[in-house]
């Protein structure tokens, strides 16, 4: 019996050690700022992302379902018919309103995209990262649509992030809310450089700002255009709090992103610029693909 137990313990120890070594190797290779999808991940994402997309597309229906449920919980039997009718009409109205809002958003996005001298792809947000530590969202566009890693992602409201990893039909965006994403930014009024980092709770921090800088609450931040990922001049956010009491040589500056990540539904992925010579000889037409 003792021999059986010790044999079992040996197998347990060997298994634990093997997987621990694999995991440690995996962690040592892990990058939190960029990643290539493995074949297995691509396969799983290709299978599950359409389901995620389905939920994202039926956002209004789900919302109506919950609203309708809450609305009819306390109704009496006599009123069921009338309530249902009202509910149906309201649902139609909601849908009309949703279409109107979507139309408005897409128009804004289209008019904004015309101002950018770069090819871009319109994509829909279909999911969020399932871990709390990371602020990543999934788009319904991938390498088959021309999306590449490190492509900047924006909306008409401002900067969203960049493409962290890409599959054939889906891609993941590391948003500016994520602590692993650092954006070189400029304070629009004073032209002061700083680094914007995510700090959770849908806020960011502007770092490395000298205490002598005259930054004020309400100052707007734009991308500085250095670093090779983001184009210059995209809105990043607004200064909402300054901690001048913080110890050290720099200020503690809180930033509220320009983009409302709670309501983010469509984004623009900017494509890498084509070579200058190619642009001179054959201008690339601006194209915007629908979500």
């Amino acid at each position: 019996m003792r021999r059986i137990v010790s044999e079992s313990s040996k197998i347990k120890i060997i298994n634990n050690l093997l997987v621990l070594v694999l995991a440690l190797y995996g962690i040592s290779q892990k990058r939190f700022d960029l990643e290539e999808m493995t074949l297995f991940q691509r396969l799983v994402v290709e299978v599950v992302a359409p389901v995620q997309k389905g939920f994202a597309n039926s956002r209004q229906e789900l919302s109506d379902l919950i609203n309708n449920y809450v609305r009819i919980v306390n109704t009496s039997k006599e009123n069921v018919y009338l309530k249902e009718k009202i509910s149906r009409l309201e649902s139609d109205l909601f849908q009309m309103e949703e279409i109107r809002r979507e139309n408005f958003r897409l128009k804004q996005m289209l008019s904004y995209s015309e101002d950018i001298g770069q090819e871009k792809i319109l994509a829909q947000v279909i999911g969020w990262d399932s871990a709390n530590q990371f602020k990543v969202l999934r788009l319904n566009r991938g390498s088959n649509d021309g999306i590449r890693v490190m492509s900047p992602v924006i909306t008409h409201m401002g900067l969203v992030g960049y493409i962290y990893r890409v599959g054939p039909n889906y891609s993941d965006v590391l948003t500016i809310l994520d602590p692993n994403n650092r954006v070189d930014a400029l304070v629009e009024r004073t032209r002061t450089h700083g680094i914007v980092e995510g700090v959770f709770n849908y806020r960011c921090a502007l770092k490395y700002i000298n205490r002598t800088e005259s930054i004020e609450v309400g100052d707007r931040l734009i991308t500085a255009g250095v670093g090779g990922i983001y184009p210059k001049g995209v809105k990043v956010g607004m200064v909402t709090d300054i901690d001048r009491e913080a110890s050290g040589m720099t200020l503690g500056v809180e930033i509220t992103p320009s983009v409302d990540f709670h309501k983010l539904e469509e984004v623009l992925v900017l494509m890498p610029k084509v070579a200058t010579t190619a642009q001179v000889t054959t201008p690339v037409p601006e194209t915007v693909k629908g979500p």
Partner: protein
Amino acid sequence: MQPRFSRLILSTLITLGILIALEIATSAFLPAIGWREHRLAFNVVIILFMALKVTTPLLPWFVMMLQLMHAAFSVEGWALGTLVGILVSLIASYLKEILQFSSAIATMVTVQLFQLVWYVSTAAIICLKLGSFEKFGMMFWNAMPGTLLLSLLSPLLFKLLDKVWNTESDVGRSGVEI
């Protein structure tokens, strides 16, 4: 008792299916209905169930398999959760004699305590990897609301997984040799 190999495979496949459904719920369904502040890390609770209630030499491989699936839904990747999962299962193996799952509250408290260990370890490893402990507190506290909700849901999830792994007859005692 030696398990039938086919039973083991079936339980694993069903558990992976449950994980996929729950990951879709937390990454797409809940955000679609307006829940975007906190994510519910169901992979953590499923691994905790395996660590606390299933005793098998293959446990580390199960943990890795679950994390590989989780990596398709999160940039966290498979390695971090696998490492922490094995650490937690080692701790659980030493505490098995004193852990009880006789009531829902006992399950909730145990799951909450192990989730705290999980998130302290995860935040510490990420900070070590990034070379700065500046965001350690934030990473940890940011996960807390989700862990509380998961602990409340854990008796239900454990009941479901008990059926899948055939550990339901073992009420009150943790660790079933399979």
